[in-house]
C-alpha cells in the first residue's frame, strides 16, 4: 500500500531498553544512517553505571536519544517525539519526559506480569488508559523477530537478541532512512559469525517491512537535509574529538604526545582511542592510579614531550598536588577533565558542570592554571588543540573541561584541512642564557613570561627544578620573602597574560523585530551551549530580544568580558551546578549576574530554558 509521507523539520527519537538490549548500538546505527542522509544531528546517550544492572528494572534502563533536523541542531536534549520502549521499565523510566501526543512504540512481548512487576507497575499501562494522551503502538517485537528468522540456524536466545534490529528497522522505515548501510554494517560486524549476521539482517528487514505493510503506522516522515558550511564531514563523539585535538596539538607544536591516564568513566574512551594511534608517535601509559597518571605526564614533559593526562572529577581531585607541582615547575601539561555528577563517586555516567571551581582553585597555595571548556562534541577538537597551544606557549598546566554529555554525544564534524590548523612550534633552549655561560632556567620571555624549556640531553644546561620556591631567574631554592612574593605574582601574571592571545568574547545579539536592542545577555559555558543557544533562538521567534554569548576560556577570561557584561541590564548565567561561573563573574567583575541552575545529571532542555529565561527577563 502507498502510505502518506509527511515532511517535518526536526525529530527527536529515544531508544530505551534494558542495558543488555543493545540500545546504544541501535542508536548509533540510526545516527549513522541519518548522517548519511545529510541531516544535521545531535545525540545523547544515557546509560546506567552498572555494566549489567538487574534486567528488567528501572536501574538497568539504558537509552540513546538523537535529534535530527533540516537545520543546524544545537541540542539533543529536547522531549522525544518518539519513544521506543523495549520493556516496561524503559517505558516507566522515560514516560515523564514525553509531551502529550508523542509516539510510543512498546515491545508488548515484555509486558508480562513478571516484566510489569520488575518495573514496579501495579497494573498494565497498556491496558489501563494511563497512556491515553499518547500515540501508543504495541508491537510484539520479540515474537516478530523470532518468527522472521525461520530457516536461519540460530538458537532462540540468539534470535531474540536481534530484536533491537527489528526496532531499528521499524524506525528506519518511519523516517525513511537508507537500509543498505546497516545491512553492510551487520555483515562486517558479524563477519566471523555469518548466522548471527543473517539473523540481525533478517530482523532489521522484518522491522522495516512491518512498518511499510501494517496499518498501525499511517504516516512516514521525511526530514530534508540541512544546509551547512561546505566541506568534508564525519560524525564524531566528544571523546574522540578530544583525542584528535591532542594529536593535532602535538603535531602543531612539533612534539611527541605522551598520555598517562588511569581508567575512569566517562573519560576512558579518550585513552581507548589514543592507544590505537601509536603510529603517530603517541606513547600511552596506563598508570597504577590517577596520581601516577599525571606524574608520568609531568615526567614526560620534563623530557620534552607534550604530557597529557585524562580523567574525570574524582581523578582531578587526586591529581591536585601534582598539578600544583607542574604550576611551580612551569612545564606544559594538559589535564582533560570529563566532568560527571559529583561529589565523590556521584553519578559516573551522568553529566554535570560542577568541577569549574575545582579546576580554578583546587590546589594548595596560589596555583593558577589556564582553564578551557568545550561547547559541543566536535568543539572538543578545537578546545584540545587550543589547550596544547596554551600549555606549550606559556609552559603551564591547562585544564580542559568537557563532560559526560559531550564525551559520549556526537555530531557532524567538519574535518579540518591540516594546513589550516594554527602553528605553534616549540623551540627547546639549547644555549646558555646567563652570564659566563650559565643557564638560568627561570629567566623569562618578556612577552609571554614563559621560562626556557631545556630538556635532559642538552649539554651545558643541566639544572634542577622542584616543588620548593625558586629564585627568580636562577631557579635555585629560595626562601627569601620578597622573592616568594615576586614569584607568586609572576606566575599569576603569566597565566593572566594568556588573555592577549585568545579571541574576544563574541556576542550573538541580533536586533529585535522593531530594531530594538537586547537588554538581557544569556552567558553560558561548556556543554550548555546547545540548549542555551536553542532557547535564545526560540525566544527570538516568540518576539523577545535577547543576546547570547558563550565562554570557552574560563581562565583567563577574554579581555573584553567586563565590557560585554556591563553592556546589558541583566546577565543570566545558566549552569549545571549551583552557580560556579556566576560566582567567578561576580567576584571578578562586580556584576550582579542572575544564576539559573540545574543538577539533575542531564543537560538543559531548551524548552525548559525558554520558560526559565522568559521568567527572569520578565522580572
Amino acid at each position, binding site marked *: 500500500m502507498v502510505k502518506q509521507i509527511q515532511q517535518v523539520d526536526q525529530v527527536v527519537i529515544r531508544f530505551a531498553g534494558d542495558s543488555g538490549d543493545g540500545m546504544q548500538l541501535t542508536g548509533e546505527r540510526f545516527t549513522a544512517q541519518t548522517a548519511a542522509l*545529510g541531516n544535521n544531528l545531535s545525540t545523547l546517550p544515557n546509560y546506567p553505571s552498572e555494566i549489567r544492572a538487574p534486567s528488567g528494572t528501572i536501574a538497568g534502563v539504558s537509552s540513546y536519544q538523537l535529534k535530527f533536523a533540516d537545520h543546524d541542531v544545537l541540542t539533543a536534549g529536547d522531549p522525544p517525539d518518539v519513544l521506543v520502549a523495549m520493556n516496561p521499565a524503559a517505558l516507566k523510566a522515560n514516560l515523564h519526559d514525553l509531551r502529550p501526543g508523542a509516539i510510543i512504540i512498546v515491545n508488548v512481548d515484555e509486558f508480562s506480569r513478571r516484566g510489569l512487576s520488575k518495573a514496579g507497575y501495579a497494573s498494565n499501562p497498556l491496558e489501563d488508559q494511563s497512556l491515553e494522551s499518547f500515540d501508543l503502538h504495541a508491537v510484539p517485537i520479540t515474537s516478530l523477530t523470532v518468527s522472521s528468522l525461520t530457516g536461519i540456524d540460530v538458537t532462540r536466545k540468539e534470535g531474540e537478541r536481534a530484536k533491537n534490529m527489528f526496532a531499528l528497522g521499524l524506525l528506519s522505515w518511519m523516517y525513511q532512512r537508507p537500509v543498505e548501510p546497516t545491512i553492510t554494517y551487520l555483515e562486517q560486524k558479524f563477519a566471523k559469525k555469518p548466522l548471527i549476521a543473517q539473523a540481525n539482517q533478517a530482523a532489521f528487514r522484518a522491522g522495516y517491512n512491518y512498518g511499510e505493510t501494517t496499518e498501525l503506522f499511517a504516516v512516514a516522515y521525511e526530514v530534508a537535509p540541512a544546509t551547512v558550511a561546505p566541506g*568534508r564531514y564525519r560524525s564524531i563523539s566528544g571523546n574522540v574529538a578530544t583525542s584528535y585535538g591532542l594529536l593535532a596539538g602535538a603535531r602543531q607544536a612539533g612534539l611527541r604526545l605522551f598520555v598517562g591516564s588511569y581508567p575512569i568513566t566517562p573519560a576512558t574512551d579518550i585513552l581507548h582511542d589514543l592507544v590505537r594511534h601509536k*603510529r603517530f*608517535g603517541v606513547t600511552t601509559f596506563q598508570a597504577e592510579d590517577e596520581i601516577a597518571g599525571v606524574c608520568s605526564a609531568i615526567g614526560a614533559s620534563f623530557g*620534552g614531550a607534550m604530557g597529557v593526562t585524562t580523567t574525570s572529577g574524582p581523578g582531578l581531585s587526586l591529581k591536585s598536588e601534582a598539578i600544583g607541582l607542574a604550576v611551580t615547575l612551569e612545564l606544559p601539561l594538559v589535564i582533560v577533565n570529563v566532568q560527571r555528577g559529583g561529589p565523590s563517586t556521584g553519578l559516573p555516567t551522568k553529566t554535570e558542570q560542577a568541577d569549574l571551581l575545582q579546576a580554578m582553585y583546587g590546589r594548595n597555595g596560589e596555583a593558577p592554571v589556564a582553564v578551557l571548556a568545550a561547547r559541543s562534541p566536535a568543539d572538543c577538537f578545537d578546545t584540545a588543540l587550543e589547550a596544547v597551544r596554551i600549555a606549550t606557549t606559556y609552559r603551564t598546566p591547562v585544564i580542559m573541561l568537557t563532560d559526560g554529555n559531550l564525551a559520549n554525544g556526537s555530531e557532524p564534524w567538519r574535518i579540518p584541512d591540516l594546513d589550516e590548523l594554527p602553528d605553534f612550534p616549540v623551540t627547546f633552549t639549547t644555549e646558555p642564557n646567563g652570564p659566563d655561560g650559565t643557564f638560568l632556567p627561570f629567566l623569562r620571555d618578556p612577552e609571554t613570561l614563559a621560562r626556557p624549556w631545556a630538556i635532559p640531553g642538552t*649539554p651545558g644546561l*643541566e639544572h*634542577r627544578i622542584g*616543588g620548593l620556591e625558586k629564585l627568580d631567574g636562577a631557579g635555585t631554592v629560595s626562601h627569601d620573602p620578597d622573592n616568594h612574593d615576586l614569584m607568586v605574582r609572576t606566575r599569576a601574571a603569566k597565566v593572566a597574560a594568556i588573555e592577549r592571545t585568545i579571541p574576544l568574547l563574541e556576542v550573538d545579539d541580533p536586533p529585535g523585530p522593531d530594531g530594538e536592542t537586547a537588554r538581557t545577555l544569556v552567558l553560558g559555558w561548556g556543554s550548555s551551549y546547545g540548549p542555551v543557544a536553542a532557547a535564545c533562538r526560540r525566544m527570538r521567534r516568540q518576539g523577545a530580544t535577547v543576546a547570547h554569548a558563550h565562554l570557552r576560556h574560563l581562565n583567563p577570561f577574554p579581555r573584553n568580558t567586563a565590557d560585554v557584561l556591563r553592556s546589558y541590564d541583566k546577565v543570566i548565567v545558566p549552569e549545571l551546578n549551583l552557580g560556579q561561573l556566576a560566582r567567578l563573574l561576580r567576584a571578578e567583575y562586580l556584576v550582579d549576574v542572575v544564576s539559573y541552575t540545574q543538577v539533575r545529571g542531564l543537560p538543559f532542555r531548551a524548552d525548559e530554558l525558554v520558560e526559565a529565561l522568559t521568567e527572569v527577563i520578565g522580572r
Partner: protein
Amino acid sequence: MTEQNAVASSNGAGRVSRPVDAEVAEGSRTRASVLTAKDLKTDQEVRWCPGCGDYAILAAVQSFLPELGIPREKYAFISGIGCSSRFPYYLNTYGMHSIHGRAPGIATGLAVSRPDLSVWVVTGDGDALSIGGNHLIHALRRNVNLKILLFNNRIYGLTKGQFSPTSEFGKVTKTSPLGSIDYPFNPLSLAIGAGATFAARTLASDRAHLTSVLRAAAAHQGAAFIEIYQNCEIFNDRAFDLLTKPESRGEWTVELTAGQPLRFGPGGTSAVVHDPDGFGLATKKNVADDDPGVIIHDPTRPDPSYAFALSRLGDDDPRLTPIGVLRDVELPTYEELMTHQVAGAEEAAKADLAKLFAGNDSWVVAPGGTHPRD
C-alpha cells in the same frame, strides 16, 4: 636499545638516540671523557645535618658516575620529599625534586618517553614505602629502567622524628611514646615480592661496597632497587651499628658474592643452608669446610623465592642481615617493550593524520547545498 647499552658500557660514551640530535650527542661525547666527580658538584650548599649518612652517598655517587662514561647531560635524578630527596640539588645533572612519594611515577614518564636517558630515583623509607608505596611496586613490576636508591634510616627525619614504615616494632618516637605498634616493612622483601629484577642492600658507611652495588645496578637492564642503610644522627642514631661497627660486622654480616658460599662468623664456620623445618633458608653454626649443604650465592636464580628467603635472614638476628646483590635477573624492560610497540606501529602504517581524521564514514557538503555522502 639505547639506555641499557649506555649504562652497561664502561669504556666510552653511551649511544644516543632520539629525540636529541646527533650534533648534541657528538658534543657530549667529548665532554664525557673528562667527566669527574667535581663536575657533578653544584654550587648549592649541602644542607644535611652534620654527620648525616647522606653525605657519604652523595660523595659515592659523584665519584662513581664518571666511570659509566655517560655524558653528564644524559643523567636525570628524580626525587620525592624528605631529607634524602634533596639529593638532586647537589648533583650537577638534570634533576627534579618532586612531591612526596611520586618520584617513581615522574621518573617512569621520563624514562618511557626518553629511553636515551639514564634515570635515577632518590627516595627514603617514608617517601618510597609509605606515601609512595604504590608507585614503587608498580615501577618495579613493570621493570622500568630506573635505578632506585632508597635511603633507609628507619625514621622520619625532615619532620623531626616520627616512626617510619621501617621503624622497628616497639620503637619510641614523638608519635609513638608508648612504642610503635606497626610491624615494619622489609624493603627488600617488598621489592622482590613486587617482581623487582634487581634488588640489593648496602651501607652508606661502606663506600667500597656501596660503589660496587651501584656498579651492579647500573649494569642491570631494568628496574634496580637498592636499599641503603643510612644513619640519622639526630633522630635515630646508631640504628645500624650492628652492621657497621667492625666488632660485629667483620664476622657476622652475610656478604653476598655471586658464586661464593654463604659463609660467615668467626673463621667462616657458620653458613646459610636450606631451612630443614621450613620453605626458606636458615643459618647453621659449626659447618664443616666441605659441607655440601652450604648455599652458593646465585642472584640470577629465576625463582624469586631464593632472594626473598635471603631478604628475611636477618629477621631474628639483625647481625645476619645480608649485604650485597640478592637478585639480578634479566627481563625485557618496559621501555624496550614500549619502544618496540611504538616503532612497530610507526612502521606498520604511514602516519597520515588527515586520513585518520577523515575516518571511514565521511561525506562532502558542497557549497550552497547538501549532498549525501560520496
